[in-house]
């Protein structure tokens, strides 16, 4: 399958340069420019406003940047408004000059899409021009400005092989909020609907920094929802944080499977950090809710911190799962800490008949004994669990409001306390993008058991 990457961001004037040389037979051309374009990335669009040599017969050409190697920019012809067809960018003219000496048209580089919602709308389209009908399509966010999309609903991908919503490598968060591309909605998503709503198989959502901080008086109560068609969905390396207030009749949830899916389906939630999810009026709060899911759930390496419910018989849940007897949940290397509610249920397996494979999870000293990493509401007696740990033992780098950093510090008991989970679905890539090796840590951050992480020399 071909992979097509398209950029998503608000920068519509990245650079303008004039093609100087071109090679290749189309639809892909390797082009150099008089001055090598600055700030462009794979997935950006090259736009040319052209006319025939000597003027007239206008057509706007659109090319996609598919590769960058030094000064060589590979551009794929996509469309032109006069339907003239595939052409190299070199030899497309402005209409200026004379027919014998026409002026080469410049190329304006822009993002392909300005918002996540409009990217999704094109995924839903049957003839989008910008990717092949059976491609693996990757939409990469760029940190030009905040993404404020209130709700994005991926519920059709036509015949695409897969869809990935990701972040351009240099614009990814560093494991802390607002350090890269930020998705910060300001308007209602709809109660129980979700900010990112997924109802297609083979989708990856990764490296997203979703802040709910503007939504305290809004009905938004769920960050990522999985609607039921979610086979081979992977939710990894995301930050979800800062929901307060009372969103309505049901409380806030970081990631939730809303429906059962099929028993043969697999859903993986890997190395995410979810924190500061605080209900203020009479509802439960849940970090990860996979309760309805009847397929296989892989919940690995997540860090959940400061989950607060409100009211009598309203509980603070870390990870809630296994209501369906057909469900198998593999739950390993997770941290659940700082719960507060009428009960603190760090891990809650609802149905005794569902299957759980648990290992090396941690609950702190706020969790009720019945619901800690060892017992999970079902007296599992998991001897690999770490329970009753204090925040000092977990040793997050910073829990200070405004500078939260839930990486583990070098004295953390989580270092070297995890189980090796292999490499499937990128589970070995931690919240910084580091590749885990040797002894694994518990939680979303990996720190080498031999010492410190790959720290830079630093003047203290």
């Amino acid at each position, binding site marked *: 399958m071909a992979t097509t990457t398209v950029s998503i961001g608000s920068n519509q004037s990245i650079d303008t340069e004039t093609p100087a040389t071109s090679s290749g037979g189309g639809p892909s051309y390797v082009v150099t420019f008089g001055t090598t374009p600055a700030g462009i990335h794979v997935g950006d669009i090259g736009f040319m406003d052209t006319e025939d040599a000597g003027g007239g017969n206008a057509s706007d050409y659109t090319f996609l940047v598919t590769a960058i190697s030094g000064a060589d920019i590979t551009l794929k012809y996509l469309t032109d408004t006069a339907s003239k067809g595939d052409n190299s960018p070199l030899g497309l003219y402005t209409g200026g000059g004379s027919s014998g000496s026409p002026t080469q048209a410049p190329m304006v580089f822009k993002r392909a899409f300005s918002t996540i919602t409009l990217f999704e709308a094109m995924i839903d389209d049957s003839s989008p021009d910008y990717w092949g009908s059976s491609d693996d399509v990757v939409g990469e966010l760029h940190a030009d400005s905040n993404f404020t999309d209130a709700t994005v609903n991926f519920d059709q991908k036509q015949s695409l092989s897969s869809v990935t919503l990701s972040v351009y490598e240099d614009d990814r968060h*560093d*494991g802390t909020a607002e350090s890269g591309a930020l998705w910060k909605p300001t308007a209602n998503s709809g109660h129980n609907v979700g900010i990112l709503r997924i109802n297609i198989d083979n989708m990856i959502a990764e490296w997203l920094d979703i802040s709910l901080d503007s939504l305290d008086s809004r009905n938004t109560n769920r960050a990522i929802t999985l609607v039921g068609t979610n086979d081979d969905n992977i939710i990894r390396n995301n930050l979800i944080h800062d929901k307060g207030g009372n969103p309505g009749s049901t409380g806030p949830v970081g990631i939730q499977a809303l429906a059962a899916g099929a028993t043969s389906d697999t859903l993986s939630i890997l190395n995410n950090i979810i924190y500061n999810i605080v209900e203020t009026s009479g509802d439960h709060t849940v970090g990860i809710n996979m309760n309805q899911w009847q397929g296989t759930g892989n919940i690995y390496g997540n860090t959940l911190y400061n989950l607060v419910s409100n009211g009598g018989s309203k509980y603070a849940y870390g990870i809630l799962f296994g209501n369906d007897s057909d469900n198998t949940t593999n739950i390993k290397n997770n941290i659940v800490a700082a719960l507060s509610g009428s009960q603190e249920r760090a891990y809650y397996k609802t149905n005794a008949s569902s299957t759980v494979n648990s290992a090396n999870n941690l609950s702190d000293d706020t969790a009720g004994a019945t619901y800690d990493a060892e017992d999970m509401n079902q007296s599992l007696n998991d001897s690999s669990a770490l329970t009753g740990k204090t925040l000092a033992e977990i040793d997050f780098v910073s829990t*200070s409001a405004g500078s939260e950093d839930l990486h583990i510090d070098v004295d953390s008991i989580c270092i070297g306390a995890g189980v090796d989970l292999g490499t499937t679905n990128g589970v070995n890539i931690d919240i910084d993008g580091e590749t885990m090796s040797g002894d694994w840590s518990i939680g979303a951050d990996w720190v080498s058991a031999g010492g410190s992480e790959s720290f830079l020399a630093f003047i203290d």
Partner: protein
Amino acid sequence: MEIIIKVNDGPSPSSYKDGDIVQAFTLDEIYYHHAQQKCNVDNFGLDEVTGNRSPEQLLIKFLERTKTYKFERLNSNEVKRTNLITNEVSILNKTPNADNERIDVYAYLVRRLQKASHLIFGKSGREYWYGKERNDIDIGAVWNDIETHSDYLKSEHNNFPFSDVEKRHFIAINTSGRSYVGDSFTRVELSGDTVHTRQEVAIEEIPENPSEDYEPILLAKRKWFVPYWDLATELGSSVDDLRNVNHACDCRKPMNEREHIDILTYDKIATGVI
């Protein structure tokens, strides 16, 4: 207020429909998107000596106006946090305070400095940085700063930066409200929920006491639509052009030419479409 509209029905029953309002933006949101681009960290260099971000005036002013906290490292262990809205000051260190807040400033800074686009300022050992974006940003003040420290003008950044792809597959329009004095009116910008409700999903009414596992039924991908096929005159473009993907449709107009929101936008539920 700007709106972007779906052209032609999507291929599936649950897809966007012809005329659906896919997204809507307030003018302040549009100004903020542009301001963030002008004040993007990539536009500002690093100090050649410290390797920390150079504290250029525009960037610092932007951060002071858009972030809630300023953090200043005092020594190897302590950080002073100032709430820029209330001026409340706290001293943080490795020992948790009453709110369980603590920070290992050394470890914190080491990680931040690994990222090329970090926003750590100041001398080594006396670094400072800003945290937590505000929710009530004074966008007018932000643009005053931008105009003071650059050649950019706020008045030239009134439109959302839709891409060329989007302008060919969707229709970009803007609309207005009205402020009446007697029978005469002036056109006014729309803001807040008036704008944002136009981009909402159509959802079945939620029962009074739903369970925690309650899933709302989505009636349609969008609740509001613009019957652009009946509004060619108002939008200033033919229906054929509006539906032609080879024609970029940007029907955004100056304020004094905009149509009223009630002429352009309709609720599918209220009008019986769904």
